[in-house]
């Protein structure tokens, strides 16, 4: 005990970096007539280990600042230590809710670097898996957001629907959450008849459920009071912080990587990019719900047009494969926004440098400005409407 005490007393760090990570803007000690509160890292509505330092006057937020790093897992550094194949499972763990999109971003970056061709059937399977995963991510967001607003029941219904998607994706990929379904030059396994039949069954099921969600939840007067005109993010502000995905589409800009920088075979499908000009939490809410419908449309068309053929390219790289020297960038549209991977190769069998561009990081940076002057309850609503996944923000 006494030995431990002594060790603790010897502080190896100077005062300004010691112990608690107080930010540059929040000083230690007493505030005048205000409270400085730690919202997180163990707060029920910060969805994991996000920590937000807030200074409140009563319940009004004077300033708020997210403190990151509680779930930093060095994904970028790990990439430099692993071979190209070994790194793929990390991608399922960056954003566990839309793992397929991260898979795709990484596979796409490597394929673009090495010029690997992907068979047509694999492209379709990628689209199906990625869009189903997007739906499941949005459903989970929907349930969790309403949980933040104090409605306990919707998440159970959302999980019921989500469960069906997990069952479908489990058949080819073998996992239910952190998929590593993509391979360099294709996908790991084919969708069998049972999985395809389940998808055909699932599409009308979810289409039947969405109107019920609208009637019972979206049109609820209490919910509307909690999300309408809350967290207004003007387009100019979204641009300033580099927000993408439903956040920027909720502010009226129809920016979607699938349209703006077309990749894979997205130009073959008919779908709309839902936008809303209200800029508030309700706009982001309705954009996400509309995206579920659009993703269903894409899945429906992709399943109908699914060609025969290989699911993995014949020229797919072998485990100890080395790509040529060079660099490449590949962006995909994730459930939370633009996922970008910048890859530099020095010709060895592991990347020289890999940069992950996570949409959640930019979207979260809006929070500080958006939450100023709002009530604590509204801050929870704004935080939820940004759809944060903490491991993606910290990487």
């Amino acid at each position, binding site marked *: 005990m006494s030995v431990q005490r002594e060790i603790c007393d010897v502080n190896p760090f100077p005062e300004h970096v010691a112990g608690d990570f107080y930010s540059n803007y929040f000083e230690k000690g007493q505030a005048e007539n205000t409270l400085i509160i730690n919202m997180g890292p163990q707060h029920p509505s910060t969805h994991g280990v996000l920590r937000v330092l807030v200074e409140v006057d009563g319940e009004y937020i004077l300033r708020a600042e997210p403190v990151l790093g509680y779930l930093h897992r060095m994904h970028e550094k790990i990439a430099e230590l692993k071979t190209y194949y070994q790194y793929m499972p990390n991608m399922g763990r960056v954003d566990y809710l839309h793992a397929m999109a991260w898979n795709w971003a990484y596979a796409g970056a490597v394929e673009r670097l090495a010029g690997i061709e992907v068979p047509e059937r694999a492209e379709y399977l990628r689209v199906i898996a990625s869009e189903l995963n997007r739906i499941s991510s949005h459903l989970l967001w929907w349930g969790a957001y309403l949980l933040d607003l104090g409605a306990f029941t919707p998440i159970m219904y959302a999980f019921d629907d989500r469960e069906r998607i997990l069952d479908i994706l489990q058949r080819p990929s073998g996992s239910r959450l952190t998929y590593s379904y993509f391979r360099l030059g294709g996908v790991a396994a084919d969708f069998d008849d049972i999985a395809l039949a389940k998808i055909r069954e699932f599409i009308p099921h979810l289409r039947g459920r969405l109107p019920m969600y609208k009637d019972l939840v979206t049109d*609820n007067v209490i919910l509307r009071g909690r999300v309408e005109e809350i967290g207004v993010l003007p387009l100019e502000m979204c641009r300033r912080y580099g927000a993408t995905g439903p956040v920027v589409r909720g502010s009226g800009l129809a920016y979607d990587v699938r349209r703006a920088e077309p990749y894979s075979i997205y130009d073959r499908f008919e779908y709309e990019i839902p936008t809303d000009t209200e800029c508030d939490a309700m706009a982001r809410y309705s954009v996400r719900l509309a995206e579920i419908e659009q993703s269903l449309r894409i899945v429906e068309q992709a399943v109908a047009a699914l060609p025969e053929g290989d699911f993995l390219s014949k020229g797919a790289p072998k485990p100890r494969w080395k790509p040529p020297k060079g660099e490449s960038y590949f962006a995909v549209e994730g459930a939370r926004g633009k996922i970008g991977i910048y890859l530099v190769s020095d010709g060895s069998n592991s990347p020289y440098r890999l940069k992950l561009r996570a949409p959640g990081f930019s979207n979260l940076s809006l929070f500080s400005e958006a939450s100023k002057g709002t009530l604590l*309850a509204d801050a929870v609503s704004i935080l939820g409407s940004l759809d944060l996944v903490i491991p993606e923000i910290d990487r």
Partner: protein
Amino acid sequence: MDVPFELVRIVIAILALAAFVGVNAVILVWVERKAAGFIQRRPGPYEVGPQGLLQTVADAAKLVGKQLFTPAGADPVLFWLAPLLAFLPIFVLLLPMPFGPTATGMEVNLGLLLILAFAGLNVLSLCLAGWGSNNKWSLLGAARAVSQAVAYEIPLLLSVLAIAFMSGGMDLSAIVREQGGWPWQWNLVLQPVAFIIYFVAAIAETNRAPFDLPEAESELTAGFHTEYSGMGFGLFFLAEYAEMIVVCGVAAALFLGGWRGPFGTDGWWWFLAKLYALLLSMIWFRWTYPRIRFDQLLVLNWKWLMPLAMINLLVTAFIMKL
């Protein structure tokens, strides 16, 4: 030894009420969890005992067995006074409750006044809990609790007064006796507005969703009882359910004819049936609605419930004078 009969009666009544509160809280928690399960399409508790009936007992045993932990920096006296203060007034609240034609703890002329007066004590306990815990979230919860309870006590009082005007007294048993057994002979038909105001205010007074702001889980972690564990939390929990029984019991007596039943089937069974119907609707609300925001809560009270209750009271008074 000459013990006054009234004293013996009150002691027996309090013991009986303690048993009633205990048993009903256990049943009510089970009912709530089963109803929540039904609403959320899941089975609810079903492992412990038949249909999970003993789940609440197991939970209570766990809570009793836990260490009574006082957090660092908390005021130990206030911290432990708060849960007791939340729970003890429940017995007084239930004393004048007319369970059946003869089953009343204590016949008091001013039974209604007694209930309303002691129901206010709840605020004090929430305030102490928030202040004594030395936790910022608790403090915010307590601040919410005080302004919410103070605001909603007024429409609650005004709506109840309308019934007192009609009956000409504040004796709960007398008010029940004046109503008939059939639904159209209930005060509900004469005072629908008062009933709605009473019920909304009662949900707010008992801090139930959608008005559960003092403990708002997703905003204030657990509000005023953030720092409580074990039986400290258990007493708050028990008090919440006991208070639900009180406010629904008063509503059943004032508006739904209490123990009166059709075809002369008067008895406590009718009272319990009406009580549980109201409790079930409270549970239904909780698992259906999102939480309201604090300013919206106060707007609802001061701009809608208060004026409505006032108008209702004035109209009642005017008609009674005619």
